[in-house]
């Protein structure tokens, strides 16, 4: 019998939530790869039933402390879809501004605190700060600016309170917006310096043949609106999601795996957005991408950190554009009256497309809820990446192999709290 090796990571660090990785190697073959999600289930889709449609943004925010805005945005757009209301004009622009804040905060957290340590051989941002204090201070400053957008427009950074179906509770003052714009002008230099810093990292040669899935909008880089498109020709409205995608329940995960009915697993997130929407980036973000050596598409998951940095440049630029052209709305929200029906929405969370479905009764009570987070869509692709990554690297000693496998998982900035409905690494060599 061939020699067996097991590589186990019992508790994945620098990811949000609880997961483990089990890899079994038999001789020179990768026998099994399991990304185990043991985050305990919290049953959001069940506990939403019977709640008011107006409560969905406040309740679903609690799925994730890192990307609450994404949950709030998918929830309000799905409710508005159910009730036949479209929010336009300055309120629409302000929702986009809020999302810019979350992208900056979440991406910078991942770039500096969770993922850069992998590339630089450190365990944590604190270790990094000991060697590169100025770089880490720059990251913290940039992250803070993202949080300041969310804090101003959302009321607070984690679980914002100012988002409602139809718009907001209160619109900040003109002088508040003007002060924010000044901070964003400084943040733009920090964002460009981040791209330049990350572009100097060593990236393994690892281009993969993915089916990318994300939103696409005719006029803008996607946040809250657009059709669901893929690199293999899918092009559907968000309302048709369930006709093309299905969730499977596997034994080793409290997160459901989502796949395309026609072709199986696919990839959402920054690489998908970038590769399918490059033309919609701002000139400054395109220039930063080109200077960093990126093409118009990117198929190397290890370069996701670089694409995130480009998206931070875009988010800062876009936030400034919105503030520059913003007219303060007359009213903080539009009225949304409940009606019986089903609503759908997908928005681009920092980690990828987040789809919500709700069925309402005539009084606006939620009868059915279904939430499909980015990490559950990526879980099968993460396992597939690992299989392809390990096979040519079997001669590496276990500790190096384990380090690189963990890094490969973190390429996805997996959010396990979100997907549980994620990770521990075990590499077993047989």
């Amino acid at each position: 019998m061939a020699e067996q090796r097991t590589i186990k990571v019992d508790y994945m660090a620098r990811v949000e939530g609880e997961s483990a990785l089990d890899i079994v190697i038999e001789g020179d073959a990768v026998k099994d790869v399991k990304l185990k999600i043991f985050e305990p289930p919290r049953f959001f889709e069940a506990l939403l039933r019977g709640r008011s449609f107006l409560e969905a943004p406040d309740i679903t925010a609690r799925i994730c402390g890192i990307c609450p805005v994404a949950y709030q945005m998918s929830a309000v757009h799905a409710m508005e879809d159910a009730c036949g209301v479209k929010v336009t004009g300055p309120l629409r622009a302000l929702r986009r501004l809020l999302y810019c804040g979350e992208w900056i905060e979440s991406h910078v957290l991942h770039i500096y605190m969770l993922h850069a340590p992998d590339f630089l051989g450190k365990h944590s941002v604190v270790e990094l700060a000991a060697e590169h204090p100025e770089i880490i201070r720059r990251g913290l400053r940039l992250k803070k600016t993202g949080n300041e957008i969310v804090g101003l427009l959302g009321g607070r950074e984690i679980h914002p309170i100012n988002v409602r179906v139809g718009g907001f509770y209160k619109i900040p003052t003109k002088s508040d917006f003007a002060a924010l714009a000044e901070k964003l002008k400084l943040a733009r230099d920090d964002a460009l310096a981040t791209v330049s810093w990350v572009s100097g990292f060593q990236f393994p040669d690892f281009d993969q043949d993915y089916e990318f899935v994300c939103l696409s909008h005719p006029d803008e880089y996607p946040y809250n609106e657009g059709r669901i498109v893929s690199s293999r020709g899918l092009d559907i409205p968000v309302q048709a999601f369930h006709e093309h995608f299905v969730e499977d329940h596997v034994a080793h995960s409290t997160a459901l795996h989502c796949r395309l009915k026609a072709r199986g697993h696919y990839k959402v997130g920054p690489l998908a957005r970038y590769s399918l929407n490059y033309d919609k980036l701002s000139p400054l973000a395109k220039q930063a991408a080109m200077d960093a050596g990126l093409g118009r598409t990117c198929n190397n998951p290890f370069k996701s950190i670089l694409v995130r940095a480009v998206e931070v440049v875009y988010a800062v630029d876009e936030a400034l554009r919105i503030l520059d052209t913003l007219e303060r709305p007359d009213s903080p929200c539009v009225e949304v009256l409940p009606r019986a029906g089903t609503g759908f929405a997908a928005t681009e969370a920092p980690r990828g497309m987040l789809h919500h479905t709700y069925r309402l009764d005539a009084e606006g009570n939620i009868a059915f809820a279904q939430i499909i987070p980015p990490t559950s869509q990526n879980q099968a692709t993460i396992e597939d990446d690992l299989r392809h990554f390990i096979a040519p690297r079997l001669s590496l000693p276990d500790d190096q192999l384990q380090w690189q496998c963990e890094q490969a998982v973190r390429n996805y900035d997996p959010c396990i709290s979100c997907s549980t409905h994620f990770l521990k690494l075990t590499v077993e060599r047989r």
Partner: protein
Amino acid sequence: MGKPRLAVWKFASCDGCQLSLLDCEDELLAVAGAVEIAYFPEASSDMQPGPYDVSLVEGSITTAHDAERIREIRRQSGAVITIGACATAGGIQALRNFADVEEFTRAVYATPSFISTLDTSTPIADHIRVDFELRGCPINKHQLLETINAFINRRRPNIPAHSVCVECKRRGTVCVTVARGAACLGPVTHAGCGALCPSYDRGCFGCYGPKELANTESLAAWARDKLGVADKDIQRLHHNFNAWSEPFRSEGDRHG
């Protein structure tokens, strides 16, 4: 003497309260200078064994395995501080305590037999002795820094226990109930958010849970009789992130 050793633990939760520590952009490096961050898997892959001087615990107990794990953390820790509504009250996921969990599992998962979970989501203090409970959904990061500072310096944390209503008066916000007839849990809710919602023209919905000796019955009767709030909506206000905490639990049960 070495620096105090800090550990950060997660149970059923959204990660938001431990993220509050990483959100201390201006203070994080100072904290890392004052304590040894010995165990904080969300931020570091260097996971040191115990014992720890201070353990911050996020999340509620929802599995038999976690009920065991929290006892081991107690044994390994000098002080245990719970952070946030999940750890101090059971969290939004404690809504299962009012429902049939098997039915919840069937509603979410295709193969319920793959899922092992307890019937209830319960706060940490139901399982072990807790030295301090920091409230909020999410916690206030300045209160978190104050609490860590207090414990490493062996003093009591200065965390006010009055109501959100008092915070509102202190910041000079016009009362949303009196001026606009909005339902607001401010009079019965523990301070800590700085009376955020009324400053954004909305009523408090209880993120920080009940204050001591909260007269929820009187407030609920007033909301129903004077403001015309429906019983169902009064129940919803009490039964969210701190639904399992008394008196929010029984007040919610009386309506609906």
